[in-house]
Structure formats: C-alpha cells, structure tokens
C-alpha cells in the first residue's frame, strides 16, 4: 500500500485538486462569457460554456491518475473497447487514444512521434501510436504522469493497428494484454461472430477479477450498462441537435466534447455533463445562435479530426460559409445506445461493440453518410483521407464518387493526418477548401 498516493488520491485530488481545477474552470468560463459579450468574432460563436466543465472533468481524471499506484488497479482501454466490466470492478480507466488526441490538440504530438521514429517506428504507422509510444520513450506527457497499467484491454473494433500498438505498450510496461476481437462486419454480424465476442467478454471477467482482487457484481454491471446507454443516448441527442438550421454546434465541437463519452461513459458525472451540454445547446437554439455565424453550406466531416488544426479549419471553412455540422467519427460513441441492454449486459455489449461504424463495411459507411446527408440537410461531404489511419480511410474514393453521383452533392478528399502535422500543408488545404466552396456554390 502506498500511503502517500492514498493520501493524494483520496484527499489531495478530491479536495485540493478539485478546488484548483474548479477555479481554473471558473476562469475559463469567464473568458468564454467575456467573448460572448463582445461577440466580435465574425465567423465563429464562442465555445460552449460546457467546454470549461469538460476540461475540468478530464483534468481531474488525469490528476487522479497520477496517484493510482498502490491505491487502485489501473486498466488501459482502447477507445472503442467494452469499458463496462472493468468499471464494474472499480478499475481506474485510462484511454491512450484520448491521450494521443490530446497530444495532437496540444501540438506536442510531433515531438513524441519523432522520438518513436528515432527508435525505429515507421512514419507510416498510426500517428496516435507513434505519439503514445514516443511519449513513453521520452517520459513526457502533457497530463503530468501516465498511470501504469495493471491490465491493458484492447478491442479490434476500430482497427487491427491498435492491437499492435497496445501490445507494444504491454511490452514497455510489462503489463498483460487482453484482446477482445470483434470480427469485421461486412454485411451483418453473424450469429457465431456475436457468440465469439460474448465468449471473450466472459473470459475477461475472471481475468479482471483476479487482477482487481475482487468479484464483479452482476448488478453493478447492469447499472453501468444502463448508465452507459443513457450517456450514449445523451451524446446522440447532442449530435442530432445539429439538424437545426443554423446548427448550434458543429462536428468540430463534437470532437472537443466527446472525451467523457469515450473514456468515462457510464459515470454519473458524464451523464450530468451531457445534460448540461444539451441545456446550453437548446438555449442557443432558442436564441437563434449559430455555431458558425456565416453558415450557408452544411457539410459532413468524414473520418478523424485533424487535431492540431481544428480551430484553423473551422475558421477557414467558415470564411467560405461552410459549417461542418456533423462528424460520423464522433457519432461512433452514440451507437452503443442502440444495442446496450442492461437486462442482458454481455449480449448487449457484444452487439454494441461489434457494430461500431469502424468495424463495418465501406458500403455501410456510405449508407450511413447518405442518411446523414438527408437527416442533416447537407450540401457536401469533406472526407479526411488520413494517411496513418488506413481502416477509416480505405473506401473514401468510392464513397465520394457515390455521394456525388447518387446524392448530387459535392465531395472533397483532403489528405492529411490526424496527429502528424508534418504532412499538413496549409496552403494546399486552403486551396482545396476554396475549390470545394466553389463547387458548393
């Protein structure tokens, strides 16, 4: 037992840490309020006040993570992974993908990628993986300290790449890696595929129990599944509000706000958070506030964000009257709402995590995009061809052609990378967006 960490985890973090973070949130909220009053940005509305709350929540989580050693067992999770069993066993949950995204947004990813590359990791592999591995090798992170994993659980439902990445981390941290393999759904998930995922979830329980040193309560698992479903439902509500014209939030806002549903779904504060976001969005709708003041053309953003240029992209698009109102990537964490079932948690989880959009065919993704074009009354689709994320990017060439042909809308493929800013050319992207705007007009 680590008494210093016990003290920090149970006293420092919830009392002192929370107070400091609350103060920072208050400062951030004031800053947002001031820009709301000034309202002098011609293109974008100020961020939602909830953004400050979200930063507080995530920072608090990371802060606690520093002191988990000897206090709480730590589970690392991939972002699309069934989180519920480990939540039911009270693990401290840490999501390396979120860390990767944060490093991208804070523009430290390239430094970390370069470190990984100097250790032999190719520039052609996923830049999240390079960021995370580089962060470990450099012993540097914007969150202060990364909690050491007692178990690493990784799910293949977003890609196969992530298994390689997490297995490498398992070697570096000398931690056991548990793979949950979700067969790719080409058409619809077959019975034996779901049975396979269920069997693996059942295999996870005793392994996790052994590490946690306690038995899992089935009732607690049910509660978490119920709350997780509710959280995903709320998240879906948030995203669907963008159907409103002008859209009160954009797909880019969604990238910023999705942290809790990815890493903390099923927790009470996440539910309260998304209720708060919804209230704020509804207020915007009632007051006729548009996220993009110049909204003229509405588009779908396909694939991962370009983390290090979110604001620049928002502005550049807005300057041409383009609002990226929805992102199918952020929608991924709304989908569990459709399948989760607290009465039959294992079956519900198997269904939910096998049917994530990234685990489904290129044809399904196209249908999904078409549906969004109709539902959100879109004029075009911007497909981010992400150099180091093959699973999401393969299929876009045909999807674009089909969208143009079948829906009569415009489509642009933009080749960049989610975390590696070295492949980003501002001039080229500006020109492409300009040409896209001309097509839309």
């Amino acid at each position, binding site marked *: 037992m680590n008494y210093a960490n016990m003290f920090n985890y149970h006293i420092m973090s919830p009392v002192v840490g929370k107070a400091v973070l609350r103060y920072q949130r208050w400062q951030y909220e004031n800053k947002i309020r001031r820009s709301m009053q000034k309202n002098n940005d011609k293109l974008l509305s100020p961020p939602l006040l909830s953004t400050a709350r979200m930063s507080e929540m995530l920072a608090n989580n990371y802060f606690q993570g520093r002191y988990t050693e000897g206090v709480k067992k730590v589970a690392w999770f991939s972002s699309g992974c069934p989180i519920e069993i480990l939540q039911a066993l009270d693990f401290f949950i840490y999501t390396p993908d979120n860390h990767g995204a944060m490093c991208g947004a804070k523009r430290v990813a390239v430094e970390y990628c370069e470190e990984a590359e100097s250790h032999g990791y190719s520039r052609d592999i996923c830049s999240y993986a390079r960021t995370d591995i580089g962060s470990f090798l450099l012993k540097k992170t914007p969150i202060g300290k990364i909690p050491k994993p007692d178990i690493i659980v990784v799910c293949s439902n977003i890609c*196969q790449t992530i298994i390689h990445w997490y297995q490498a981390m398992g070697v570096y941290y000398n931690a056991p890696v548990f*793979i949950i*393999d979700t067969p790719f759904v080409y058409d619809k998930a077959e019975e034996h595929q779901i049975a396979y995922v269920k069997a693996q979830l059942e295999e996870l329980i005793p392994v996790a129990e052994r590490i946690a040193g306690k038995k899992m309560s089935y009732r607690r698992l049910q509660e978490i599944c119920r709350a997780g479903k509710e959280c995903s439902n709320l998240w879906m509500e948030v995203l669907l509000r963008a159907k409103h014209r002008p859209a009160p939030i954009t797909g880019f806002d969604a990238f910023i706000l999705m942290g809790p549903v990815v890493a903390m779904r099923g927790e009470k504060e996440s539910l309260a958070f998304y209720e708060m976001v919804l209230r704020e969005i509804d207020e915007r709708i009632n007051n006729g506030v548009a996220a993009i003041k110049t909204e003229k053309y509405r588009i779908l953003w396909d694939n991962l964000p370009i983390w290090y240029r979110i604001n620049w992209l928002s502005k550049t698009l807005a300057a041409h009257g383009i609002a990226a109102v929805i992102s199918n990537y952020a929608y991924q964490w709304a989908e569990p709402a459709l399948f989760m079932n607290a009465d039959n948690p294992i079956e519900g989880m198997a269904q939910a995590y096998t049917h994530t959009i990234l685990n489904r065919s290129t044809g399904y993704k196209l249908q999904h995009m078409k549906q969004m074009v109709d539902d959100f009354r879109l004029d075009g689709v911007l497909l981010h061809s992400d150099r180091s994320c*093959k699973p999401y990017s*393969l299929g876009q060439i045909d999807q674009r052609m089909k969208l143009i042909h079948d829906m009569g809308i415009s489509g642009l493929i933009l080749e960049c990378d989610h975390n590696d800013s070295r492949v980003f050319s501002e001039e080229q992207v500006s020109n492409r967006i300009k040409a896209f705007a001309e097509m839309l007009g």
Partner: protein
Amino acid sequence: MIIPTRKDVMQKAANQGYKIAAVMPIHYPRAILRACGFHPMEVWGPPFINNREGTQHFPEYTCDIVQKAAYFLTQEHAASIDVILIPHTCDSLQGMASIFMDFIKPKQPVLKIYHPRSHRASDVIYLEKEIKVLTGKLSEISGIKPTDNDILAVMEIENEANRIFADIAQRREDFAVTDRTFYTFLRSREYLFAEQFIELSREMPTGKADLKGPGLMISGIVPEPMDLFDQINRFGAHVVIDDLACCSRRIYQAFNGDNPYKCLAQQLTSMPPDTTLSAPYKSRFEYLKGQVRKSGARGVLVYNVKFCEPELFYVPLFEKAMKEEGCPLLFIEGEMSTVIPGQVLNRINAFVEVLS
C-alpha cells in the same frame, strides 16, 4: 527440377474439373476449397504489375499487394477466376474485401474469412464456425457439398504437403540448390496442387548446399522480386532460415479427429507467431530467437512491403530482441517491383560486409 507454371496449373485444374479460386494472403483452409471443387491460386501482388491502377480505389498509402492485386483481379485475364477469397489479414485487406464487395463488384463472388486474434480458447470454437460458413458459401457457388469424410480425405493429402513443406523449410542446408531455387520451390505451394508439390519435393536435389559467407534469416511478407536471393548470394551471404509470411509462417500442423472443421480451426490457430495475426510480441520474439539459434543465422534481413503496418509495428522490438541475441538486423522497405533499387542493394551489401 521443373516447376510447373501458374498457367500449366490452371490448365490442369480446368482439365480436372476444378474451378479457380484467387486467394489473397495469408492463411486460409486450403482443404475446404479443394473439397468444394476449387483450386486455390494465391495472389501476392503480383510484382510485375507496374502501373498503379489500383489507386483508382485505394489511396496511395495502401501497400502494393493490395494495389496491384486490385488491378490484376479486375482485368480481362481474370475472367478464368471463379471466386475471390480475401482472408482478413490486416486493415488493408479488410478494406480491399469491403471495397470489392461494395463498390468494385467484380463478376466473381468475393468471399472473406475472418481470422480470430484473441489467442484464447474461444478462437478455435469461433474459427470452426467461420470455416463452416465459408464452406457453405463455396458449396453454393460450385454446387458441391462435401461430406466430413470428403474433407478429411482432402486434408490427408494437404497435410502431407504441409508436412513436407515444413520439413524442407527447416532444413535449408540439406538441399544442393541456390537460395532462389529453394524458395521458388517453397513458394510453388502458393499455386500447385498438393500432389504436384509432393511429387516435386522428391526432385529437390539433396546433399550439402554450396552456401558461402554468413547465413541470414530473411523476414517479411514476401521476397519479391525473387532476384533478391541471387543478390544476397552475389554479395557473399546466404539464407539459412526464413520468417516469411508466404513461407515459414505457414508451417501448419496436422490435427486428427472426426470433425474436419475443428481440425482445420486448430491448424489455423497454431502456426508460428505471425504479425498479421497479432501474435503476442514476446512469444514471437522467443520463437524467432529460437530459429536464429537453431539455424546459426548471423544476421536478420527484414524485407518489408511499403505501408505494411503489421510488419512495421514489430520491427523496433524485433531489432532489440535480436540485438540481445547478438544478431544484427537490417530493415529494408520498398515497393513491390521486378527490380531492386540500387540503394537497397548497397545497403544489403554493406550489411553482409559487416557480418563477414
């Protein structure tokens, strides 16, 4: 030893009433195809396709195997192919299968098989069912519904070919042929009938191979162009063992029993640790260290197809593991083509000099 060409084999298959299945890398239940009336011909590129027509459907950061195969399988000459099977080997082949089914829609049916990767008991149970589903789909196309006994009979001959393949692959020094001939023979398993392969194996000249200089382990997906082996020999080294996806990672064990699906599922989950099946790093490196020790390899040449993520992830820790073994590793990456760039040759040459 004259190895029949792909054309000869296609003719033979046609004469014997087999349909042709074009199969993408790497692992699949060969016996099932055969029992359902298909002869599998594997497609690893092919390297001679020079143009990048594949980019019509795939971004340029997709590996050459997928790009070239996508082009190759949609051309006129592919008309003699009756079915395309795409195993779920990696994210890129997953994308290829999906794009073929949803957008390219070739005239042939496109089938898939998803390999389990949990590395636990449930893998075999799942794969047994996945193989059954595949069998059902193949039967629908060919009209041949094999009984368990039919499949077991085919497995017997395939297992014999597998046994010979494994035996020869592990005894490079016992065959008096060049590296190129040795690996050309092993790779003929990609398209020969099992019987032909067995027959041909009897013609492999035994006796001490004339192997000069340091021995290498060659690792990677596929050694294309095969001239690579001549160049290694020219620089004064030779290959003693391989860890190639097209060769030694396909050393399949035979499992006996009445249920052919279960035996095949066991077989396809017990190969040497393979990157594309997300083998745990430790077991893969332990296995490779053992191979290096057994073969006496003095260096490792990793010859990678550009953009092949499964391979790329393992390389840094592979290099570290080999260093612990006192065995340096050279990583080479390039596009698949019929010629090896001079720069690559210089690096291999320098590597061999250091080892010598």
